[in-house]
């Protein structure tokens, strides 16, 4: 197992190198002027341009910039964000936990939700029930998250006033201990709901297909013949066997969610990696953009590794073969 993990880590190195080169090239090709975005929509005084370009070495030849960056990254230095006036790594380490929190809690709701709907739709004998859930899931999945987010805000925050409209926490708070946790949870509720509905519906569709596939397997027929009840069959045979494709999809999408749910973070003013990415592209804060992309890539690699390990745990055949 350890060898397996090390092997994966070694694969990651050339990947990151490629990401750096590709991102540098792309960002180099897009027109943009970081100094202009510092000044706003008034002309940049030449003296100011000179100072900033010199300080952040914006005029170094392209190859020198890439070379310096690769060497720095090998030393654990991901550069300096001139739009945030701090090291990129600091910035990512500060923003990532916010995104991880949103994604983890979102998945914690999305997976059971998707599994429940998938199992109900897949095992029902009533075609009407199946149609209802399949169609609802498809419609819910098709709603763009930014619109869904706005709807949730309008309903639960503005109309009922149950939750705050946006943000990751109160700007003024006197709460401590459990109250503090509860307060935080209120800010988390709507983004998580939007996230869970969207991702959950995707999982529901995969789960349903997988359940139907499992139902046609010989061991289900055997189980039925043994006289097991419907509930027992679902619990003991279908759930576990149908979960494998879900684990794959959930693993991938969790990995990419760690790169920041850009639209969701914008709609709920959740200052995680997604918002950081949007701002950095807009302001041409290139080193921050590359830093976030590297983080996202690492997140996907790590999640794939975890998926492989989960596979082995879920399916004894893979375990023994490995």
């Amino acid at each position, binding site marked *: 197992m350890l060898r397996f993990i090390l092997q994966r880590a070694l694969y990651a190195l050339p990947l990151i190198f490629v990401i750096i080169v590709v991102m540098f090239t792309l960002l180099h090709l*897009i*027109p*943009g*002027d970081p100094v*202009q*975005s*510092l*000044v*706003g*929509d*008034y*002309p*940049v*005084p030449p*003296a*100011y341009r000179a*100072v*900033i370009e010199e*300080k952040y070495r914006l005029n170094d030849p392209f190859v020198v910039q890439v070379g310096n960056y690769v060497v720095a990254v090998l030393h654990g230095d991901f550069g300096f964000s*001139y*739009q*945030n*006036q*701090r090291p990129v790594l600091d*910035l990512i380490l*500060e*923003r990532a936990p916010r995104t991880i929190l949103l994604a983890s809690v979102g998945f914690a709701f999305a997976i059971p939700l998707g599994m429940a709907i998938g199992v109900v739709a897949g095992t029902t004998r009533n075609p009407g029930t199946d149609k209802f859930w399949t169609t609802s899931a498809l419609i819910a999945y098709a709603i763009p998250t930014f619109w869904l987010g*706005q709807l949730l*805000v309008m309903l639960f*925050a*503005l109309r009922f*006033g149950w939750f*705050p*409209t*946006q*943000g*990751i*926490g109160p*700007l*003024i708070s006197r709460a401590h201990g459990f109250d503090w946790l509860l307060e935080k949870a209120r800010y988390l509720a709507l983004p998580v709901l939007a996230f869970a509905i969207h991702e959950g519906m995707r999982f529901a569709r995969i789960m349903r297909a997988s359940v139907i596939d499992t139902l046609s397997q010989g061991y289900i027929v055997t189980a039925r013949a043994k006289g097991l009840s419907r509930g027992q069959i679902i619990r003991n045979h279908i759930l576990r066997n149908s979960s494998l494709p879900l684990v794959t999809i959930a693993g991938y999408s969790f990995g990419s969610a760690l790169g920041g749910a850009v639209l969701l973070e*914008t*709609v*709920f*003013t959740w*200052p995680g990696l997604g*918002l*950081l990415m*949007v*701002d*950095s592209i*807009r*302001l*041409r*804060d290139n080193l921050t953009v590359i830093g976030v992309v590297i983080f996202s890539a690492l997140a996907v690699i790590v999640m794939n590794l975890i998926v492989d390990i989960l596979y082995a745990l879920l399916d004894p055949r893979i375990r023994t073969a490995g």
Partner: protein
Amino acid sequence: MLLASALSAYALGASAEEGQPVDGGTVIAALNSTTIPTLNTQLTSSVPALFAADVWADGLMTYDRDGKRLPRLATSWETSPDGKTYAFTLREGVKWSDGQPFTAEDVVFTLNSFGKFNTYLTKLMPLIEEASAPDAKTFVLKLKQPLTATLDLFDKEVFPLMPKHIYDGQDVATHPANIAPVGLGPFKFESWQSGQSITFVRNENYWEEGKPHLDSVIFALIPNPQQRLNAIIGGEVNWFRPEVAQVRASQDAAESGKFKVVQIVNNAPETSVVDLNLTREPFKNVKVRQALFHAIDRERIVQDVYMGLGATAKNAIPTQFKNLHDTSVNYDTLYAYDPEKAGKLLDEAGYPLKDGKRFTIELTVIAKAPYDAVAQVVQSQWSAIGIDVKLSTLDQQIWTNKVYTERNFDASVISLTGRTNPVLGVDRSFVCNEGSVPYANPTGYCNPEFDKVALDASAAPLAEQKEHYRKYAEIIARDLNQLQLTNSQVYEAVTTNLQNLDAQFNFSFNTHPNWAEAWLPADQQ
């Protein structure tokens, strides 16, 4: 007029009800970005930084509601008869937010160290002969030649004062104090929660007796306009500035009584324009430019895009500059909406209709409200007279590069702010710009006659300036390198528990609240 009287009626009613200010409480104001690269407004003209500067920075002077100058840290100022020497007498006993004394040395230092980095001072800096501090409370500026706008350049928004003892001898452009500033404003910088909020607390050293009333002002960083409106409806913030397209929705939401939408009566000009590339066909021909202007129904843009919250632009000098705007040049009559006449002009210019089409152009714009909507109206109206208009809606940086750096455009829509004097935000659209400086005349229009008029206008004594600016407006109305479409109004949304709104919005040009005046009733802190 109706609105103005309604506002003053409100102001009277409010002062009768409000009573004595009480200290304490926190106000949360929404800013429109999660990333703010610098708070130092000597170095940036970005909107969030300017709003934040209201609480921590101060300057020599500002403006009252009628556009008259109000003393801040300069108690008085004198101009020599030749218009070349300005002497400012500074307020005594003033301290920086860190307790160090404020002296004329700080003013000299700010000008000498930051002037070359300040986008508004590019016209002034080459004219300076010497800036000096003969004593601790006198600041003297000597110019090589007169510049009548000089006093406007020392407005607190354009020229916030910076502490010498913090910056001296260091790299001021990238100094850490630019994101953790020390200033002369009513509040002082406390902390910055990255991507979330910036907190300012009462500045105990503030020079105005008994102010500020609030304990702290927190800026919430909310990049999405709809979320800013949601936040004030949900009671999470006390102040935000609605975007033009949001004002009506904000007014509707304000009927709940939780907040009100206030118009800034004498706002800085905000003019939507079309720049035309005069180095290209068919714009080389002035008749084409006139035709294009006649073909735009500007009132329709005011109604549809700005929802009636604005007016058509009258000439190159925005109407807000009451002492400089001459009503004899009026686009509403000179270039009244007249598609037929536009068609005739194009026929005369050698662009007759052929298969329902005259020529093809590209109209480029930033993918952002309200610019994109303005461009869409212009596109449809130009199409109506047989011009094939391809709309390219671009990311702001790509648009800037295309229009200003590469000048690879036909026509371009943008909205420009004018600040307090034509020298600051109006000249840049017309004065010859041979380099590739962004947000300055990209049209290739270089008219020595006009440049001289602009220079003379900026140097003329106050009483004679209007005449110069009439000539200025006449030349632009004739040459039309840029079509000025609309002049929009500015609104702010404030929760009703915030008191003393009248004093708070008692200023001109900068549309920014005076947070030193605001207070909250004791039961709502």
